[in-house]
């Protein structure tokens, strides 16, 4: 982990973008096509099956909205952490990152509660096209939230020691991307009828 173990390759910056941020951008690009492929498949099915609107009306809009709010707020924490990192204030950045991770946790809890209600009503992964996409899309997104939280806590642990501060911005970028995905999932899964 120690910075001295880094190869020279990692410290160069031919593009003017630090390697850490550059790889983050590429990861985000590859995530765009993964989510994009799934969303495109969902959208063309959804337009082709107007009757899915009936299933969609069973989703809990308030839960989705609440989750959107939670993610937006956690994104705010993430970007404030980036600001703190730019000011070389590692401990503050770490605190804000942990807040962001907490936001992710709340998001997952709400989602878990929401899914329990759905399943109680008998809507499971295999009960029709809409629900299959509903659980797959939200599930894939949820996995990204979970992964983001774990990485974020690791980054926070380093940042608290004023180490690897550049990572604070990168995990933030990733988190904002996850946020944006949800910004589109919310109307697609909850509002559109």
């Amino acid at each position, binding site marked *: 982990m120690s910075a001295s173990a880094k190869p020279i390759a990692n410290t160069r910056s031919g593009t003017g973008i630090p390697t850490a941020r*550059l790889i983050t951008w590429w990861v985000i690009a*590859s995530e765009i096509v*993964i989510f994009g492929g799934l969303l495109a498949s969902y959208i063309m099915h959804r337009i082709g099956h107007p009757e899915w609107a009936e299933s969609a009306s069973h989703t809990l809009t308030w839960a989705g909205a609440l989750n959107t709010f939670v993610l937006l707020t956690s994104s705010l924490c993430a970007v404030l952490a980036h600001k703190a990192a730019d000011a070389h204030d590692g401990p503050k950045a770490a605190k804000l990152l942990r807040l962001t991770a907490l936001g992710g946790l709340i998001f997952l809890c709400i989602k878990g509660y929401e899914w329990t209600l759905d399943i109680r009503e008998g809507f499971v992964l*295999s009960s029709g096209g809409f629900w299959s996409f509903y659980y797959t899309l939200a599930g894939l997104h949820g996995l990204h939230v979970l992964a983001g939280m774990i990485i974020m806590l690791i980054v926070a642990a380093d940042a608290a020691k004023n180490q690897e501060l550049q990572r604070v911005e990168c995990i933030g970028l990733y988190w904002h991307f996850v946020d944006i995905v949800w910004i589109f999932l919310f109307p697609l899964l909850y509002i559109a009828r």
Partner: protein
Amino acid sequence: MTTEVHHAEPGIFRKYFFSTDHKMIAMQYLFTGMAMALIGGFFAYVFRMQLGFPNQQVPGYGIVTPGRYNALVTMHGSIMIFWVAMPVLIAAFGNFLIPLMVGCDDMAFPRINRLSYQIFLLSALVLLASFLVKGGPFGGAWTAYPPLSAVGAYNLTPIGATLWLLAVALEFIAFLLGGINFTVTTMNSRAPGMKMYDIPLVVWMIVLASIIFMCSAGPLIAGAVMLLFDQTMSTGFYDPTRGGDPLLWQHLFWFFGHPEVYVVLLPAMGIVAEVVAVFARKKVFGYKTVLYTTWAVGFLSFVVWAHHQFVAGIDPRMANIFSITTLLISVPITEMVFLYIATLYGGSIHLDTPMLWALAFIAEFMIGGVTGIFLGSSGTDIYLHDTYFVIAHFHYTFVPIAIIAVYAGITFWYPKMFGRMLNETLGKIHFWGTVIPFNVIFIPLFITGTAGDQRRVYSYAQFAEQSRPALQHLRTTSTVALLVMLAFQFVFLFNFFRSVRSGTSAGANPWRSTTLEWTVPSPPPHGNFAEMPTVYRGPYEYGLPGRADDFLPQNVPD
């Protein structure tokens, strides 16, 4: 300083299995790929024996039943593309060459690099595990069209199908990690002075291939998740009776599957460019034009995918669009091949083994290219689709890519990898023993294809027109040629492993080449460069007028 951490000599296990050194990871990919190639080649041997000599005991295997035949062809296809071509062409050469050629000490993210290999190894093991499960390995063709692949009651290999899908998904993740690492390293970690157009073509092409892979694999990863749920959680993504659509998978698959062709083609093209330049002692003809054509190919490869589906039940009007784009993509590829041929003009060509392979690549790949026109033009594809004509066509592209170009690369960089030369005589024997039988295998298949032999059929006994003796003779010829070709591969293996110990020592720059990897000792030490190089010029400065030496390395000041 970097070298500090490397000095402590790690234990064997750490050194060979948990090394983060790009050269070691390259070797891991190379040898895993070679091992898988042996397996895939064995499968080819088994099902060609069944086709050449129907319903007889295959030595070393036994009777080939229909179920086993399907599994064999499926696994041959999957393994040769995903576990041989990709790891060797992109991962092995990419890992070994990129840091050396752009003049840095390692990948930008060595531990991500190691992780990518470990995931890849896991994927290979998962695939091989599917041979041990109940029902045996998946037999629904490497395209895995649902509902056949989605429903155990249809494919009769429920566990094998799921394992196959898992293996492919893992393999994709491995190459996403690897590819992103290659891209970042090349973009950010170049030696001072190495500008965009000073990067050797092979690095360019491996990076572009990684990017194409990244952009095309995403939707299929999503599709794989859907198919996995169809298999295991009885969802209906591809089930027409439950609001799904089997065509969606076909589109997702080929939206990845066609760019995939160029993902493996480009690195091969890059290797050939390097080899041709060195052994013709010539600058690559129109370096920039080659790059522009590569970008054009990369982009166009995303708009042609449905030419694999002309008769698959897509709306016939769409076929016209994809037919046009398909002919369009032949334009930059032709240009690229012409430029390679033009590179020979005015050179002084040394026909060492690597050069033989490289020239063979161009000569054979052209055949593969032109036969693609028959399939890309929708009219004739109605008849030729899913016949042996298709098989012959894409083997005339994939064998030059994954066999011939790979041999060009291995024989060319072997001195750098192991510090010793391969045996030239054995090399030439192996070359002719591979290239001649290769043509004898697949030219007959063009004919059986035009005669209507359909693919993935274990015996033509049921089909009166196909079981004509004339056609059976052609199949037997092809099988015999395959046996010869496979036999000659042992010459290579012998040469390869013998020379590691007893080859004549190579020295830093045996081919008198200009790129940076030849400025370091062979094999390169940890950290590659004693002091980090600076680059002053492009990669192919051969035969500069008014110089004693006919080559000018990139790192030599004027």
